[in-house]
């Protein structure tokens, strides 16, 4: 890049944010170091992603020629994905995880919004003790064994409910939603009340339409926690047909389980690394897909929660 175009680039960039007059320009060394740190961070996060993606898309021959891993496959193929998803364990587990995530998130949001709204109006009967009940969950943890025994006594071992119930409500998320509801001007409530609207109607007609952003963020937090949870599956699910994707991913990527050509109905399998990377990418895709849309909101969500809690 020529000096002229570099200056032009820097000038263009500076339109977005001015360096304050009092701030000195960093020395060339400092600028160089900053640039290195930026590149270092991009590589540290991006490289493992690209490596797994590239390997999942590479052909068996190319992988063999490159010591097992390929960053940028020369002729990408979806063979690994096709084989992995052609039936059997991974397909089943992906369906389980998708179902749990959708149903779980819906239940979580329903209860979170209801509880947060119920606790958000000033002076409600028993409002304070109920709020304490929710906040008390920050202070203690019941522990693994009592949790397990309760799920067992309720007969929920080996049911999909055991994948939802232990993480269905989270006090942090309730506090975030409640704080948002409380930020809605009181005048809106008063006006609606004058028009004869009851609490539920106000929630549905006025509060919810104003709260789309916070609900999207909290919904994402819940969805991610269902999708990513592996311990509840390990603890409560023994039946292979009910295993969530993370558990299956673990068996292939970390425990070295191998794919079975016969069970998958193919004559020859692609490279096993490539196939386990395909499973890994499948577990990452939904998250990477929704992340950009919600990113601008979640910072706000985290901060409200952290400050209120």
């Amino acid at each position, binding site marked *: 890049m020529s000096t002229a175009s570099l200056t032009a680039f820097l000038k263009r960039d500076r339109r977005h944010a001015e360096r304050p007059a009092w701030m000195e320009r960093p020395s060339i060394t400092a600028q160089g170091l900053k640039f290195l740190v930026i590149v270092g961070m991009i590589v540290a996060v991006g490289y493992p992603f690209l490596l797994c993606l590239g390997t999942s898309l590479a052909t068996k021959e190319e992988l063999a020629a490159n010591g097992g891993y390929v960053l940028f496959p020369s002729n990408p193929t979806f063979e690994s994905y096709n084989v992995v998803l052609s039936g059997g364990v991974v397909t089943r587990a992906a369906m389980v995880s998708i179902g749990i995530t959708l149903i779980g998130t819906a239940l979580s949001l329903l209860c979170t919004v209801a509880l947060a709204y119920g606790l958000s109006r000033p002076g409600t009967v028993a409002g304070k003790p109920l709020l304490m009940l929710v906040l008390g969950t920050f*202070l203690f943890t019941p522990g693994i064994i009592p949790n397990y025994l309760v799920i067992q006594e309720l007969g929920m071992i080996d049911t999909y409910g055991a994948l939802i119930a232990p993480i269905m409500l989270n006090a942090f998320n309730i506090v975030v939603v409640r704080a948002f509801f409380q930020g809605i001007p009181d005048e809106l409530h008063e006006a609606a009340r004058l028009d004869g609207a009851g609490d539920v109607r106000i929630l549905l007609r006025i509060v919810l339409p104003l709260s789309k952003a916070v609900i999207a963020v909290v919904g994402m937090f819940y969805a991610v926690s269902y999708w990513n949870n592996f311990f509840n599956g390990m603890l409560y699910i023994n039946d292979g047909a009910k295993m969530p994707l993370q558990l299956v991913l673990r068996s292939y990527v970390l425990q070295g389980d191998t794919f079975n050509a016969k069970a998958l109905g193919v004559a020859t399998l692609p490279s096993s690394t490539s196939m386990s990377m395909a499973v890994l990418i499948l577990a990452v895709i939904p998250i990477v897909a929704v992340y950009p849309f919600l990113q601008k909101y979640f910072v706000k969500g985290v901060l409200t929660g952290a400050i209120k809690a």
Partner: protein
Amino acid sequence: MSAAASASPSSVVPHPAPPEDDDQGPAAKPKRRAGRKAARRPLKERLRRDKMLLFLCIPGVLYFAVFFYLPLAGNVIAFQDYQPYLGFKNSPMVGWANFQALVQEPEFWTAVWNTIEISAVQLMLYFPAPIALALFLNSLISTKTRRLMQTIVYLPHFLSWVVVVGMFQQVLGGAGTVTSFLNDHGVGVGNVMNNPDTFFLLITSQAIWKDAGWGAIIFLAAMANIDNSLYESAAMDGANWWRRIWHITLPGIRPVIIMLLILRLGDILTVGFEQILLQRDNVGQEASEVLDTYVYFHGVVDGDWGMSTAAGLMKGVIGFVLIYLANKVAHRLGEQGVYR
């Protein structure tokens, strides 16, 4: 946090102030008001007024009762000789016997020691990482670059531990790309994923990779609240960037640092359970057994319910006491702390 300061001593979260206006509408419904006036209304009337709000609370409250407070009460089996077929109610009480047996188990002490060791390392390396990252992000003048970097460093937080450990395996494992590269260039590092001696460093670096970006959010917000004129006058007085960080930025975010430090102290006996469970087979039990995995393997796997619950309860109580004490100390030092 300033809002919390105005709350009554017993409450952690602020209760909203009562509305000031007094225009009683023509609607027949009683107006909702906070504080004493509301308390003077007869309970029956208030119940009728709030019945829908209370109805909305039912599912959530029931949930916490069954899946949080019931198991919390279930910790009573730490004092029982728990028999699955007898249940919570009928198992014989044994007093402190489980705890006495527990402290005589060498494996328990290995778990305690490993937990404290890993926690100490994480306190030194993992705790400052988000602060350093926030300082760096804050120093980026270009909004565009800063946004891009934020997008990149927040992302790993949303990946599962299985994925994170899987990715580390591909890069740093025995056949991993970086390991192979180093081996080919004469720097034999072996398989760091399987090395029990450096296990604590491995899991700390994984934790930093995954969550340092996410942890930086709260520090960045605190930095954004610092008055810019402070920097300006400091610069006028000849303070260079380092002195501005040391004398303005860091003191400016001190309450947040202290708050998170207190919370971290309360969690000192909690170290990455899923993360460690996933890698236990790689490095062996000796290096990786922490309190949570001890509880899991001795309770759920081996069926030693009473003793493992005792270990879990002990951990919970110590964590609670530590938070309480740290908060007290912070108050003595004139800091805001976590609550009150």
